[in-house]
């Protein structure tokens, strides 16, 4: 059974790229447009891995991660954060919020799948 990956990003371009890279690697992809939407999708799907952007309208990535972690069901699900330019500040904040790891944008599909594999059981 292929793994389900939830991607949360407000940019359609980014969503499309994530979908393309991940489905090509054999993952099943569900998508959300921001943190609030992400939590809604989470209520319906049980993803094996979550990939989220930080800068998003309505609910940003940090609060999204905190919300996910508060849910007993998802407190151990791996969450990867999309950041740009290996921004140490943001990485730290994401970690404090409970992120498992990060993916530096722009990513190539190989790097992305690599990072997912590094956290996916």
């Amino acid at each position, binding site marked *: *059974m*292929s*793994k389900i990956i939830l991607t949360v990003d*407000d*940019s*359609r*371009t*980014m*969503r*499309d*790229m994530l*979908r*393309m890279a991940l*489905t*090509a*690697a*054999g993952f*099943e*992809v*569900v*998508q*959300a*447009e921001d943190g609030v939407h992400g939590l809604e*999708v989470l209520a*319906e*799907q049980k993803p094996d891995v979550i990939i989220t952007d930080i*800068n*998003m*309208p309505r609910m940003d990535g940090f609060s999204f991660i905190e919300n996910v972690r508060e849910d007993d069901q998802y*407190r*151990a*699900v*791996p*969450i990867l954060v999309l950041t*740009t*330019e290996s921004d140490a500040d943001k990485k730290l904040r994401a*970690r404090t919020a*409970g*992120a*498992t*790891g*990060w993916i530096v*944008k*722009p*990513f*190539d*599909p*190989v*790097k992305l*799948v*690599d990072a997912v*594999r*590094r*956290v*996916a*059981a």
Partner: protein
Amino acid sequence: MDAMEEIKQVFFQECEEQLFELEAGLLTIERGDFDPETINAVFRAVHSIKGGAGAFNLTDLVHFAHVFENTMDLVRVGKLEPSPGLIKLMLRAADILADLVRAARDDDTSDPGPREAMAAELKTWTPGAIPPPQAAAPPPVAVAPKEASRNNDDGFVFVPTKVDLNDFEDLSLAPTTHFRVIFRPKAELYAKGNETTILFRELGRLGPMHVACDISELPPLEDMLPEGAYLSWTVHLETSEEEDKIKAIFDFVEWDSTLEIEVTDGMRADDAKEEPFVFKPTMVDLSLLETIVPDPIDGAEASVIEPLASAAKPPQAAPAPAKAEKPSGDDHAPAEKKDAAAATIRVDLERVDRLIDLVGELVINQAMLTERVAELGLARMSAVSIGLDELEQLTREIQDSVMAIRAQPVKSVFQRMPRLVREVALQTGKNVRLVTEGEGTEVDKTVIERLSDPLTHMIRNAIDHGLEKPDVRRAAGKPEEGLLKVAALHRSGRIVIEISDDGAGINRSRVRSIAVEKGLIAADAKLSDEDIDNLIFLPGFSTAAVVSDISGRGVGMDVVKRSIQALGGRISILSRPGLGSTFTMSLPLTLAVLDGMVVSVAGQTLVIPLTAVVEILLPQATTVHNFGGNARVMGVRSEFIPLIDVGQVLQFRQEDIDPKSGVALLVEAEGGVRNALLVDAIQGQRQVVIKSLETNYGHVPGIAAATILGDGRVALILDVDAIVVDSRNDIASSLPLAG
């Protein structure tokens, strides 16, 4: 790569949206609204463009966006005051960003001059603490190939069952290093969803390894916290990879664990003494591994040697990760999967247009059917009639839905205006504040497309000729900044666009003298203010003493008027000296269908757009009065309204008819002016498909278009406003303004 190209198109579409958000946000901030959410949205827009651009190696775009983003970030975190000067600069930077996006889209190479100057200007706002963009954002071009070759080994899997350490030492195929990795996870590591087994699995991909678990820290069961971290591991790894590669695997967990990596001379050195826990081959769930990474190596025998040998392979030999192993039938699987997020689809416009054409035919066909059935003289409540009514309703619903597909908010046209205004303002040395209203007003796509040019021209015109220079304005006691307002609204089934400025208004004496000079009017013509204003729409009229390159361009207001008329629209002016002018364009919402009232006039069948009709009145001898020579008015609830005989205006007949023998339709024309149109009889109300008269025949004054009725006959659709204007001209017939 097709899929990538498609995503790129999406990216450019998204860029347009982001650019709009960016501009709108900056304009909001400019108005003094420092809502953090607005500033965030502005930041996000640039950030998003940068992110996407990075993915497509659009280096110029990435660099400029980065500089822009840095400056914006300072505003966002409150380190930089969004002063008017800074916001103006950012607006110009947004324009340059837009140019870069478009250049990237069209594969153009834009002139680097303006963007470099702007980048330099933006950088002056950021203190030295911010690293230059080159350092912070290395061009992704350089990264990608390196990354690809580094991940070269992704294709093969370490299969633990085949590892035999003795063999390894004997073979000594490639230069390998022995590492000892001591790894002590903290509880936080697990709390964040990391997993030791997975890390070791990944480590195992680098080469043969041996894992020992240290359980000495493990407390007695009663003291053990279920989520505590008590185990630590020592891993002996033999790999041809660099130490960096090992560190990379622990990248995510370095904060939540202690990690020691050291080079040893051999694996056997110190693992003989104690082996409480051996990482046995059987512990690895191979099937699990295969779901994630395919095993491209055929023979199991080869797996020991292959990893070491393939590390030296050139990048192009690297097996495509994951895809290679999938059975070909699976390729379509992603598309068939339930897609929760996709709420929109993109459709070729041609298909929609074809659908609209077909629906048009359906409407005509249904009208014909209705008429045939009516000829049979069936009872109103007969099954056929009822069925037909239902069909009519369905047809209408289909039509509305199809039209809704093409309807778009005028936003797409409006969002080009701020930039236009900035540029024209800069060229003319005027201060202009643009206010737009009703951007969400929806109108058919075909109308929107043809709206852009006239609107652009009128805005140029308003700034160039309407608004005064700052010093003139100051002298007149007005704020130096001129106000230009562009508003869209729906009014009686049409879209109305108003362009108003608070400038000097039309200089009527000058307009008049120019018109006389150019021989457009007689020197002694008696003209009302309104008539003089309308002179600017005459062909060959140009008010500017020197034709400026702003609103000149050989295009006069006459062209604007003609192009609007070609759309079935009208344009009018309201000007007050010293206070400004308002140009009002009114256009049909769609160019395809309209609800019409079918009437007969002097034996002809005409259609009057239902949206214009306010009320139907029966003229009485007591309510109709003669007024002046041949004009008549009608009293409607203590108000006198001009009564216009449509037959006379269209010259179907010369003689007056008895108003009592006809029906009067109270219509509302441009600017809310009410008139009563006198027709012979009303035949009914019907939806008609508009067929352009201009394309098929030519422009006929007073007629907007034609249609085909249910019986197959052609009927003309009345242009109510033109009729009203014509009738006025008949009354004051000496004016050269007919039409």
